[in-house]
């Protein structure tokens, strides 16, 4: 009798949410960062410097356009640029433009030079070396100007 009724009794319906097992899992549900090589990181840096330069150009066009509004306003803004904070900002600008320009040449060579893709890592090393040479030449002299040397 009990066997017969066992077939008709419906099993308890499981809740929509099952209990999750306890796991000693690292808190990284998004997945690990893709471990790309020089190519990927040069692209990331190229994108960051590119966006930074875009915002500089935006501000630069606005402050230059001020001369059409009134020369006094233009002079006032340009004088603001002569503070040490803006001087450090200019250093950052040269850092960004230096990398973006040199790496841009590297990307052009990868796309247009038939053996470019083969030497992309070597070219990245050359870009970094030229960048360092550029900054070693520029930074001390620029900081002397900014901090009144």
């Amino acid at each position: 009798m009990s066997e017969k009724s066992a077939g008709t009794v419906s099993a308890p319906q499981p809740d929509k949410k099952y209990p999750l097992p306890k796991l000693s899992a690292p808190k990284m549900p998004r997945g690990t960062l893709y471990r790309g090589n020089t190519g990927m990181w040069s692209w990331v840096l190229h994108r960051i410097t590119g966006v930074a330069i875009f915002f500089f150009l935006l501000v630069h066009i606005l402050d230059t356009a001020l001369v059409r509004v009134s020369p006094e306003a233009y002079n006032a803004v340009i004088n603001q640029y002569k503070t040490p904070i803006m001087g450090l900002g200019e250093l950052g600008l040269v850092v960004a433009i230096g990398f973006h320009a040199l790496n841009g040449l590297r990307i052009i060579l990868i796309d247009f030079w038939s053996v470019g893709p083969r030497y992309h890592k070597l070219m990245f090393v050359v870009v970094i070396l030229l960048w360092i040479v550029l900054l070693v030449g520029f930074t001390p002299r620029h900081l002397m100007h900014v901090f009144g040397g």
Partner: protein
Amino acid sequence: MSTPTIEREPVAADAIQSFTATLIIRRFDPEVDEEPRWEDFDVELFPTDRVLDALHKIKWEQDGSLTFRRSCAHGVCGSDAMRINGRNRLACKTLMKDLDITKPIYVEAIKGLPLEKDLIVNMDPFFESFAAVQPFLIASSKPDKERRQSPAERERFDDTTKCILCAACTSSCPIFWTDGQYFGPAAIVNAHRFIFDSRDDGSQVRLDILNDKEGVWRCRTTFNCTEACPRGIQVTQAIAEVKQAIMRGKP
């Protein structure tokens, strides 16, 4: 709960020394989980074992619900591409001795394609863009004999014939992660294979398809694809050659 595999002694003392490796696998069961979660497994392995062997041991001895694709298990079919320690690799071609076993080994599904379960992703978008470049011989002329091709002409596209469509390249591409519309490296590699084939007459069609906004011009030369390719195809080089062919207007 202890697993019997951990305590087991090596068969012979002078045999190759086995070790216990920890694999941390990013798991996702669509019927239970709302978010993927990480789960770790200890597996006893030999240095000559591959990551695929580790996954097999887990599935067969510890947790049968672990889900992953594999068919030939010898690097030919291209079903078991996954992210191993943050890089796209074939599990069947990655030896344990080439990984740092003192640290846990992270295994997760390839990125940029919809996650279905554990290490399995939906490959439909990948194969759709593959099909879109018309990866087959388009020849209008019907020769009386075979289509002749010199060794030099065959050599021109030899590199891109090696593709096994494992999606390791496409799912390593940062552009593809953020913009699924991009054809992706694998589709361009397979277009390259026919664009530069002297027997093929459909090059112009494929160059027009790839001259699209979402075509080859989305390539930002990050070289992730070239480093991920388990067949050693110079993927970025192939994409650059297609770019140049589009600008020339002919292969």
